[in-house]
């Protein structure tokens, strides 16, 4: 049976790894290539790398650095950040990156989702959606603005991008980012019940039991996290860690007990 995926998510800024809280105050963590090497050695299921600056700064993706990510990486990689054209996407895929993630493109040029999917297949197209909670409502945050408000609009947008060719959704909770207080399970279960494509949830994981909670609620999904895989202890010392095969086997068993699939 298909297993849930446990996915380290690395945020890039100026070629360095950073961590944020509610998408703010990036703190330098270390060298991304070294982190990838360590996750590779720990046999991580897959890895997500998001460049948080390129889109805002109107820069191109750092192709030279991206090429280095896949060199000795024996697990699939998803890259996101500044992918604006079909040729950007093809160039990255040809470097040996399995999936590319689009975020602002979903609003600025939604047809890009379809054109990339047509060329490389939907399995390599991820649409990443940053969800915040403002005055008790879910809002999609993109391009430094709240693009859509309300649960109904969120669901409509999700279905729209899947129709356009997104093979996977990456739902990133701004309101939970970096807090290590658990995923937004309500949001996760809601999205999970609305679409039948692979979904990865990111934002809020603070412990192994948070991963369990997500998987017990949502079944076979991607559980992505940053803080728990790069920080250790209450003082947040930087230390790369990742659940053992045994721990992941027990998570997989929990997924099969849900009614979600």
């Amino acid at each position: 049976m298909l297993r849930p995926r446990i996915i380290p998510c690395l945020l890039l800024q100026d070629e360095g790894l950073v961590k944020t809280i509610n998408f703010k105050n990036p703190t330098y963590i270390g060298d991304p290539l070294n982190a990838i090497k360590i996750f590779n050695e720990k046999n991580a299921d897959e890895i997500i790398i998001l460049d948080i600056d390129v889109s805002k700064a109107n820069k191109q993706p750092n192709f030279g650095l991206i090429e280095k990510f896949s060199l000795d990486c024996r697990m699939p990689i998803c890259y996101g950040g500044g992918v604006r054209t079909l040729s950007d996407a093809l160039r990255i895929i040809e470097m040996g990156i399995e999936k590319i993630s689009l975020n602002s493109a979903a609003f600025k040029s939604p047809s890009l989702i379809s054109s990339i999917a047509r060329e490389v297949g939907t399995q390599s197209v991820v649409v990443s959606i940053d969800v915040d909670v403002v005055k008790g409502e879910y809002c999609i945050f993109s391009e430094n603005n709240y693009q859509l408000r309300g649960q109904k609009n969120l669901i409509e947008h999700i279905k729209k991008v899947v129709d356009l060719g997104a093979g996977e959704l990456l739902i990133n909770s701004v309101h939970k980012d970096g807090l290590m207080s658990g995923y937004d399970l309500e949001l996760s279960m809601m999205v999970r019940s609305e679409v039948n494509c692979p979904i990865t949830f990111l934002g809020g994981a603070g412990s192994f039991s948070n991963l369990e909670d997500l998987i017990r609620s949502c079944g076979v999904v991607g559980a992505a996290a940053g803080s728990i895989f790069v920080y250790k202890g209450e003082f947040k010392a930087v230390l790369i860690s990742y659940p053992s095969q045994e721990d992941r086997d027990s998570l997989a068993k929990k997924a099969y007990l849900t009614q979600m699939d």
Partner: protein
Amino acid sequence: MIGILNYGTGNIKAFSNIYKSFGISIRIIEEKNDLEGVSKIVLPGVGSFDRVLEKLRSAAFFNLLEDLVLNKEIPILGICVGMQIMAQRSDEGVCKGLGWIGGEVHHLSKLKTNKQIPHMGWNQINFSEKNELFSGIKNFDNFYFLHSYFFQPTYESDSVAKCCHSENFCVAVNRKNIYGVQFHPEKSHQNGIQLLKNFAIL
């Protein structure tokens, strides 16, 4: 000498790095002459069926490749779409497949499934008889899958491993010197490395 076909698609570097790390000689194949002296071939493939076929057929080495595979029976391993293009046709495209192994490629929705599509992540393969490609790999070991289409061989004897995503479907084929796998051995950590090693020492 393992030839890794570079025709503009597929993770060439991943395969070459894996083989280099065991000290197995590899050559990246771009021109016809590059095929000289090659004893095995890896056919990577990422992208849509038609796009991958068009790129392969317009490669300088294509005609010689077909001769080596079909007449000289050089072992070849197709990966993911590299396996799918070996079929006769695909639901995904309009181009005629290579037809190296009888069969058709269908969308996963053709299975009796309400499961997620694309099939994305680590899943168990199962086999009743162990093909030499799976030496050192246990029944129900996991590999990484990333696809929306699957190969349905005409002859059950050409299917050498299956995977369950609601129901069982073929994920590896072998007919004489021609091998194909749906999953990504170059992205399946130790299990994938073992399989690639096995292919090298066939």
